[in-house]
C-alpha cells in the first residue's frame, strides 16, 4: 500500500493537482511515526511511510492546511474519514482545498501492548500476516497481531470511507461492532463501584491536554479551560472536582459530534480510558434519540442541536437501570 500511495502522491504533485501531501513520516524506531506535510517527490521517497503504526488521525490538521495556498493531498483511513466529514459538517475545513484519497486500515498495532509483554529495546517491528515480528537489541520475538492491536481497532465500527475523491484498495463495510460492551459493563455496576472506577481513573490525569488537543472534534479557537476570563481555566487538576469537571465538560462538548475515533485514549500518557465517556454519550444518544453516527452524513443535524416534541424527560435517568 505504501508504494501505491507514494506513486499516486507523486503523480498528483507532478500534474499540479496538489502542491502538498499530508502523510506520515518515519521515525527512529519503526513505531514513532509523525504526521507530516510533504512538499516534494524527494521528501516522499525519503520518509513517507504507511504501516501498522500510522495511527494518528490526520483530519484535524486539515483545518489549518486547507486554509493555506493551493490544494493538499490527504490520505484518510476509514475512521479518519468520519472525523473529516464531521469537520466538514461544522464548516471547519475548506473542502475545495483538499484532495482526499481513502486508504484501507487493517488495524493498528499498539506499541505499549508490545512493551507490556515485557519487550524492550525495540529496533524494528513489521507485520507478517497474522503475526507481528519485533526485533529488539535482546533478540527477536513474534506475537499474534490481534494480541497487540489497539483496543479501538479490536472493536472497529467501520471500514468504509465517508468521504473521498478516490480510493486506493478496496472499499470496506460498516461493521457490527461490540464497542459498547465496556460501557455496558460499567452501567451494570453499582453507583459506588462506578464512582470508585472513575475516581481511580480520573485521578491519574495530569492535565497535559493531549486528549483535547488531539481530538478532531475539539476545535475551539480558545478552549474554556485556557481562557482566564471563563473562571474555570486551570492548568492542573488541583482538586478531585477539577479532574471530574474537565473530563465531563470535554466529553459533553463533543457529545453528538464525537465520531469515536479513539484518539483521546490512544494519546493519554496515563492510560485513562477516556473514550468510554464519549461512548457513553453515543450510546445514550442512540438509545434515547435514535441511532446516530457523527461524521456519517455531513448534512444531518446533530442530536444535540435537534429535538422532537416527544423526547423523553430527563427523569428517565432516574428509572433507567439500577
Amino acid at each position, binding site marked *: 500500500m505504501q508504494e501505491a500511495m507514494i506513486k499516486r502522491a507523486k503523480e498528483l504533485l507532478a500534474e499540479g493537482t496538489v502542491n502538498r501531501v499530508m502523510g506520515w513520516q518515519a521515525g527512529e524506531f519503526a513505531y514513532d511515526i509523525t504526521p507530516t506535510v510533504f512538499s516534494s517527490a524527494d521528501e516522499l521517497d525519503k520518509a513517507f511511510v504507511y504501516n501498522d503504526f500510522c495511527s494518528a488521525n490526520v483530519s484535524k490538521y486539515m483545518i489549518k492546511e486547507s486554509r493555506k495556498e493551493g490544494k493538499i493531498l490527504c490520505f484518510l483511513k476509514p475512521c479518519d474519514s468520519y472525523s473529516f466529514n464531521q469537520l466538514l459538517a461544522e464548516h471547519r475545513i475548506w473542502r475545495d482545498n483538499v484532495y482526499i484519497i481513502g486508504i484501507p486500515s487493517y488495524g493498528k498495532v499498539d506499541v505499549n501492548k508490545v512493551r507490556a509483554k515485557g519487550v524492550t529495546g525495540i529496533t524494528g517491528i513489521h507485520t507478517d500476516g497474522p503475526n507481528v515480528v519485533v526485533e529488539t537489541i535482546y533478540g527477536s520475538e513474534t506475537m499474534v497481531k490481534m494480541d497487540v492491536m489497539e483496543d479501538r481497532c479490536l472493536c472497529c465500527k467501520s471500514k468504509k470511507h465517508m468521504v473521498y475523491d478516490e480510493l486506493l484498495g478496496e472499499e470496506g463495510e460498516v461493521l457490527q461492532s461490540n464497542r459498547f460492551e465496556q460501557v455496558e459493563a460499567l452501567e451494570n455496576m453499582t453507583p459506588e463501584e462506578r*464512582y470508585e472506577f*472513575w475516581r481511580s481513573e480520573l485521578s491519574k490525569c495530569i492535565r497535559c491536554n493531549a486528549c483535547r488537543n488531539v481530538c478532531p472534534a475539539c476545535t475551539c479557537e480558545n478552549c474554556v479551560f485556557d481562557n482566564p476570563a471563563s473562571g474555570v481555566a486551570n492548568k492542573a487538576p488541583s482538586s478531585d472536582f477539577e479532574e471530574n469537571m474537565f473530563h465531563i465538560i470535554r466529553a459533553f462538548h463533543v457529545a453528538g459530534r464525537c465520531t469515536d475515533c479513539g484518539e483521546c485514549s490512544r494519546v493519554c500518557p496515563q492510560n485513562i480510558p477516556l473514550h468510554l465517556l464519549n461512548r457513553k454519550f453515543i450510546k445514550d*444518544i442512540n438509545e434515547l434519540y435514535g441511532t446516530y453516527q457523527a461524521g456519517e452524513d455531513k448534512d444531518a443535524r446533530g442530536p444535540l442541536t435537534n429535538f422532537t416534541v416527544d423526547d423523553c*424527560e430527563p427523569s428517565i*435517568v*432516574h428509572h433507567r437501570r439500577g
Partner: protein
Amino acid sequence: MQVEETKEFKPTIVAFCCNWCSYAGADLSGTNRLNYPANVKIIRVPCSCRVNPMFILRAFQRGADGVILCGCHPGDCHYTTGNYYARRRMTLLFSMLDFLGIEKERTRVEWVSAAEGAKFAATMNDFVATITKLGENRRLEDIRCKKQ
C-alpha cells in the same frame, strides 16, 4: 450534665429558574404564602436552555448539595424551542453524572409554569426532602470550597 449536640443537615439547593415561567412561578408561590425551605437558592436565567452543563457542575463545586433546573413546559417556551434543547442536554448530562457514580437524585429538571406556584413549592419541598435524606454532596465537592 452534658447535652449531646445534634447538628441537623441543611442542604444547599441551587434552583435555576427560567425568567418567563418558573421564576414567576416561584413569585406566585410567595404571593400565595406557600412555604418552601429557605435553603433553596434561586438563580434566574433567561431560559432553561441558557443553562450550560458547567453551571450545574459549578454549583456543586461551590457547595450545592442538589441542583434543580426549572423551565417552561415543553411547547410553552418563551423562545419557542429553548426548553426542548435543554431537555436533551440535561438528560445526557444527568446520565453522564450517573455513569460517573454521582447520585442521580441530586439533579432534577421540573417544568413549572407561571401559574404553578403550588407546584413550585411542592417540587422544592420534595427536592429538599430528597437531598436531606441523601446527605451532603461528597462526590462532586471541591474540598477547597468547603473549609472555613
